[in-house]
């Protein structure tokens, strides 16, 4: 056959390019974040960019503390929300010393360049204005953490919160568990803390049509400024919608696997027409809802999504990270690029800590064309991925 030599040559050339399987996208990475002298890389949970290309890195840092010599057990973290410019040069820290600081989870920037921080253990979503001042809060941090009797079972009911009840569903926050239970829980959704105290919150697992979160994982916005919160690290397993002023509108989802359910929604994004895409990690799919949180369809074949992003522009794309778990670097780790209708354009990467590999991606940003920023909790870093 005439093309034998040429075809063979093309085949060997194709095989020679690094691991190019069908559907693999070409990409390069850059290590752009330049920490200042006094700040070190921590366990990076969140990354986001703003309209000027500044990069926000949200990391677990320092040491979380629990107080002794106290009437109850109080705790706090020392996470850092850091802003870098488009060249990766450090600009400032945002929200230093804020009361919610417990476990950095994700960060997003809205159309007005407000910076939103999500803390799943404090159960809060915090909105900072572009100048770093506090603009709004959703949720309330538990006053104290409970103690369980070692060996199982729950201890005496903890003292009531100082601020009283009203609207608290199953509260988020820190559990105190026997060693065995903690081992089983690692990597899975953290166990919720106190049982519901009544009020407007429902029993755990029924979606909790109310303000309070059991483990917020991510936040997103539509063109009108409505706020969508994925509430996925606790029992709620829902997506909640709020007005731009933070008034609760409604929820979608409850624990389960059918169309109306979610299981550990870990991330979410909104497209130009207001549809909502939810990384339904525990159900190995992306749930697609309309702007009223009515179920539209599911997207499968993207592994167990831990982080998703919808890119802006005339043609929008959906990026989905099938992140490897923190305890296993030898599985998963690829990121998918899809059209909004769910058809896969391609995929790139695999789990690992070397450059061009991805280690437990907790969040991705895709604001800039053909560019994805990864917040890698497994490697304590951000990589800037440029798709070729």
């Amino acid at each position, binding site marked *: 056959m005439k093309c034998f030599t040429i075809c063979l040559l093309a085949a060997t050339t194709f095989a020679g390019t690094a691991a190019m399987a069908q559907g693999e996208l070409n990409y390069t990475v850059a290590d752009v974040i330049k920490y200042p002298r*006094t700040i070190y890389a921590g*366990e990076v949970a969140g990354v986001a960019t703003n309209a000027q290309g500044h990069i926000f890195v949200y990391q677990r840092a320092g040491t979380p503390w629990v107080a002794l010599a106290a009437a109850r057990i109080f705790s706090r973290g020392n996470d850092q929300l850091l802003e870098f410019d488009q060249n990766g040069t450090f600009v400032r820290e945002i929200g230093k010393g804020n009361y919610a600081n417990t476990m950095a989870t994700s960060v997003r920037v809205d159309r007005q360049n407000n910076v939103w921080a999500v803390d799943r*253990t404090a159960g809060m979503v915090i909105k900072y204005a572009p100048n770093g001042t506090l603009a709004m809060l959703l949720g309330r941090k538990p006053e104290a953490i409970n103690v369980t009797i070692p060996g199982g079972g729950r201890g005496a009911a903890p003292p009531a919160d100082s601020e009283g009840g009203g609207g608290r569903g199953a509260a988020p926050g*820190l559990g*105190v568990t026997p060693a065995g239970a*903690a081992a089983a829980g690692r990597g899975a959704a*953290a166990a919720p803390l106190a049982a519901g105290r009544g009020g407007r919150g429902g029993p755990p697992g029924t979606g909790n049509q109310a303000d309070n979160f059991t483990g917020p994982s991510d936040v997103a916005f539509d063109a009108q400024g409505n706020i969508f919160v994925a509430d996925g690290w606790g029992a709620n397993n829902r997506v909640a919608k709020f007005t731009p002023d933070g008034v609760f509108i409604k929820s979608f989802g409850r624990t389960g696997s059918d169309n109306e359910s979610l299981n550990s929604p870990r991330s979410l994004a909104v497209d130009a027409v207001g549809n909502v895409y939810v990384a339904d990690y525990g159900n190995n799919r992306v749930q697609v809802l309309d702007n009223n949180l009515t179920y539209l369809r599911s997207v499968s074949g993207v592994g167990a999504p831990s982080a998703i992003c919808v890119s802006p522009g005339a043609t929008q794309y959906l990026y989905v990270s099938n992140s490897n778990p923190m305890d296993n670097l030898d599985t998963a780790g690829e990121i998918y690029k899809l059209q909004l209708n769910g058809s896969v354009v391609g995929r790139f990467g695999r789990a690992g800590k070397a450059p061009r*590999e991805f280690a437990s991606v907790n969040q991705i940003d895709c604001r800039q064309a053909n560019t994805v920023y990864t917040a890698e909790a497994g490697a304590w870093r951000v990589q800037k991925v440029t798709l070729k």
Partner: protein
Amino acid sequence: MKKSLAPAILAALLATIAPGLSQQRATINDTQTVAQLPYQAVPGFFKLPRDEFLGEVQGMASNSKGQLFLFVRAPQTRLLQFDANGNFVKEIGKGFYGFLYAHSVRVDRHDNIWTVDEGTNIVAKFDPTGSKVLMVIGVRPPVSDGIVAGGPSTGPDENYILCRPSDVAFDMQDNVFISDGYCNNRVVKYDRNGRFVAKNGQRAVGTGVNQYNLPHGIQVDKAGNVYVADRGNGRHVVLDNNLVWKTAYTQYGSAWSNCISTAPGKQYLFMTNSNPNGNPPGSWAITGQIYKAELDGTVIGKFGQAGKLAPNFQVVHMFDCRNPDVIFTGEIESWRAQKFTLRTTAAPAGAR
């Protein structure tokens, strides 16, 4: 001058002192046959700023330029750099998420600085200036797990999760070897990018082959052999580069930690027979010195003794021996670090 004791009396003494000590092989007969190495302390070598204290000096390592790194519980865990004259240079990693309870610091052949922290369960790699975190191995227990009653997890050991790791070492291919440690009783090998390669040991404590009881220190020679200070068993285990068991040296006492010199030429294996925490009665008679040996375990000599005041040792935890004639010790119960110089020729046995 120390009284020399017959091995039988030594064994009886060991059995009565403390359970930990009695687990050691009763073959410490060094007072009779092991040469004393002449040595000299350099008094007051490490100079801290006024009003600052060293805490427990858990880790001690030098780099190729003679800079020294101390990993201390001070009370915040701090990584401190000193220059070749013992002057304080700077602190590295203040506020770092990987620091909580210092255990060891080592420097690889590229002068990267590696810390082992048994509070965060993190082994971290810093660039030679200590400005940039290059890699982490292990996972810090997450905040969302809350307070774990009873201490660290007792689940099955995993490839990428360390539990109170103790030490780290490297071979000439930049593979990473971690002694893991207080819970998992194993040794784990990773490649240069932190990918799991192999492990040796089992979670349960054991005294036989492929078993450990608190692997507390680890070193690798230029050929790639791995040496593990198996502290609870009072022995130094030798593995090949694939973590296959080769042998164990059992005549070196409490086996807290080890150091292999990396100066050009022949390598030596140093092993500390550290006096134990709490100084049980009689323990100083059979512990306190550091041994020097060939890589194959043939003894060359020993130096030092237990004591609360310098230049004696108070629970040597880790020590540096890059240059086999210069030893830097990190000590727990004295909150101090010391510098010693050894003469290369040994004095006759029995001389003090």
